[in-house]
């Protein structure tokens, strides 16, 4: 079982090594290196950059992230339920399994409707 996930580790490492091989080895041997101060400036359509780029950003991103967290956690609970839902139906407990999940979803949908009504989903 654990060996199945060996592939995940190996693929991640090989992927990183492939990028390093291309960027730091293969391309480094072939490409020119002639830096000038102008080349190394930040691109801003030819204008001199004004101020830094590490800005404070709008709070709406944060609101979307919060609503997302709610749903991401919800879905984590839905997945195991979906896998065994068929078994419940075979046992004749399909309606029970469905209603129980429905209660869970409705509680979360109430939160979603609240967020919607409060304008958390408006891009202003």
């Amino acid at each position, binding site marked *: 079982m654990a060996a*199945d996930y*060996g*592939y995940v580790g*190996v*693929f*991640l490492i*090989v*992927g*990183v090594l*492939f*990028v*390093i091989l*291309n*960027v730091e080895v*293969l*391309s*480094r041997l*072939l*490409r*020119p*290196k002639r*830096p000038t101060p102008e*080349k*190394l*400036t*930040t*691109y*801003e*359509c030819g204008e001199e950059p004004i101020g*830094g*780029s*590490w*800005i404070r*950003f709008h709070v*709406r*991103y944060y609101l*979307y992230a919060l609503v*997302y967290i709610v*749903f*991401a956690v919800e*879905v984590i609970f*839905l*997945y195991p339920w*979906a*896998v065994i*839902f*068929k*078994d419940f*139906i075979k046992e004749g407990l*399909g*309606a029970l399994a*469905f209603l129980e999940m*429905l209660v869970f*979803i409705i509680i979360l*949908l109430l939160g*979603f409707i609240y967020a*919607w009504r409060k304008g958390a*989903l*408006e*891009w202003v």
Partner: protein
Amino acid sequence: MIEQLVQRLYTLSATWDIPPLVVQLLLMVVVAVIIILFVSVSVMFLVWWERKISAHIQARFGPMRVGGWHGWAQSIADGIKLILKEDIVPQAADRIIFALAPMVVFATALTLYIIIPFGPGLIVKDLNIGVLFYISLSSLTVVGIVMAGWSSGNKYSALGALRSAAQVVSYEVPLVVSVLPVIMLAGSLRMTDIIAAQEKIWFIVPQVVAFLTFFTAALAETNRLPFDIPEAESELVAGFHVEYSGIRFAMFFMAEYANMFTVSAIAVTCFLGGWRGPALVPFLPEKFWAVFWFLTKTYFLIFVMIWLRWTLARLRVDQLMNLGWKVLLPIAFLNLGVTGVVMVLLG
């Protein structure tokens, strides 16, 4: 034949006192390199294909010269050009994160190929969490994108990265919810089990709504038009990779096209019956037709993606968010509920 070869390798290594773990790791690396080769060829083909389709939709020819026949070698020439380009890291950039970002994006794109079922037995590892593995890992891409945008020290990049994060996060939810009915019908997360469950009927027939929401969300997840707000070139130049050039940019580009293939492959597996299809010419082996149908269906979905690019105009940011949260998400949940009720009623 491959099994015999692997077996011989193990016996050989035993005689040379090499521990089996080393052989196992070596085999895994070989598989990873094969997948990298497949990804590279597939990406080169896709880039050429997209340019040809785009050109023909606009009544142009597209690349015609490099290599002779319809410019087939154009992508190879582009690749060589990108390797030969000077590597420019702007003064204002955070160098370490700037270098790490393409690695994160490419490594996750590559790792997702583990669960793509090309044919019976032709899957790197048939993980028992299949679909969940795709969903959890594919959202890691956004970490790389935010790293790239933030470390570039460019206002366009920072804005593009933030938008990308908001978009991927928003469309993740309908994407994940629209896969749920498929899992309910198949009763498993394993890719081969999902394909096996579609023996009688492809899941697109009972789950056409789920397929449409999945495909729409998938377009947004891969930042394809009409959802390419993060790199809307008319306002953000190129979004998160404005400051990336040469081979570093190529890595992002490869990962993007690799992700297009992955998401189409997942859609084919979950809704279009995976590798199932009739054998058109009888004397070729069954495995050949499995791979043939899988690739044909996947590339057809990619063709639809490219087609949509020239059919639909780009959405505004607020329209994009509204579509994700106020249209797709309620539809996906409604579909989930209807599927549950129908399954309970039909037993």
